């Protein structure tokens, strides 16, 4: 039986990548009025062949403990769950932009790393980046300007616009605090 486990990983030391992205958005891309904060997590969706959700989690916990393929305890903290929505845990003034590479290059590496340490059962691993964007004004479902704004933040469509996803090599979703997810690519 295939069980899904979601591993969420975040840095516990200074995240220079997030600071640079925030600086790029606010200063270089002129969005200081719209964006007030940023955080970054890596989410692994892991398909594990296991008898139960518990044993699936044990498999992943073992990989986490014995390899640095998903995280390095020196630098990261992590949580394990059976499911994860893009909107989980968002504050009212936040949205999440979820970016996934279009090809499976990374999941192959993760599965290979698991088998390298002799842990069987991990069938598929796909990775996405979850950017939590804190907006100056809390988003509302009826705002017609919201999606265009988020595209200008999230999708690199031209030189001055969009940072998190290159639509030719990546796909992007947006998740709202009211429990909705939408494709962000134009």
């Amino acid at each position, binding site marked *: 039986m295939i069980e899904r486990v979601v591993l969420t990983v975040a840095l516990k030391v200074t995240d220079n990548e997030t600071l640079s992205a925030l600086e790029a958005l606010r200063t*270089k891309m002129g969005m200081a009025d719209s964006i007030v904060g940023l955080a970054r997590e890596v989410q692994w969706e892991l398909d594990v062949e296991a008898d139960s959700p518990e044993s699936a989690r044990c498999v992943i916990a073992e990989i986490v403990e014995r390899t640095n393929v998903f995280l390095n305890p020196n630098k990261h903290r992590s949580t394990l769950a059976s499911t994860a929505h893009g909107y989980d845990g968002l504050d009212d003034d936040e949205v999440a932009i979820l970016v996934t*590479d279009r090809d499976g290059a990374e999941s192959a590496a993760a599965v290979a790393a698991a088998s390298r340490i002799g842990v069987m059962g991990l069938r598929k691993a796909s990775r996405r980046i979850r950017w939590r964007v804190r907006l100056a004004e809390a988003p509302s479902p009826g705002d017609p300007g919201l999606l265009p704004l988020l595209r200008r933040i999230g999708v*690199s469509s031209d030189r001055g616009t969009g*940072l998190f996803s*290159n639509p030719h*090599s990546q796909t992007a979703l947006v998740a709202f605090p009211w429990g909705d997810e939408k494709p962000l690519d134009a």
Partner: protein
Amino acid sequence: MMESRVRIAVIRFPGVNCEDETKRAVESQGMDCDILMWNGPRERLAEYDGYILPGGFTYQDRVRAGAIAAKDRIVDCLFEEAQAGKPVIGICNGAQILIESGMVPGMTPGKVEMGLARNIMPDRDGYYTRWTHLRVESDASCVTWAMSSLDVTSIPTAHAEGRFVTIDEGLIDRLFENGQVVMTYSGAKGEAEPAFPYNPNGSTRGIAAVSNSSGNVVAMMPHPERAAWLSQVPESLSGHWGAERRGAAGSRRILAEPGPGGEVFTSLRTFIVERLRGRGGEA
């Protein structure tokens, strides 16, 4: 009357690491070259005839290789200079910046029309270094101006994200038709669309370098500055340049004579002199 010497600026973004050898390679082909800081005064930039974004890891490849540098103010200036026809060459990480800023392929200038995705290689991942054979697909660009279409050259690659991709339907065909695919990975004799390791990253149809429609802005993954002299070419390399290198073994010629990458910089100079300055003669 003496033609004034061609002046090239190599742009130092935070984290680039090939600026010094790129400058030497430019100078070896009879041009002047300065390294300019990314945060320096904009006016200075206009004084130059052409620009090179060298290899390295701008902003530590944060978010995505080239993504943050593509938003730097200096890219606006480069965009304007390129619109005026001046050459801009992005090498490796520089290519990633040009792709991320929509300067290449620039069907609609400034629109992001391609991506440079992670290498796909059998049984390995991450960074990969190898000398590659390249077939010149177009001799109209500023990096192939002094070469001829279907020439085969050899230049090393070294990167983790060098796979040209696009979701725009028909774009790849149009790039080939327009002569905007400048170089493709090939076999030693120019055989098209080879497998790994000849195509080192799984790039679509073996694309290694792409230009804008005018040929003055080029994003190339191979590193010509690492092939600027014969001494840099491996002795065991296959093809024409390997034989050239072995033929010169033991002789000072290896230090004095240009390697395959030299032709890229010669192309840059002749492109500026012949096409931009409109003179047929040598500088």
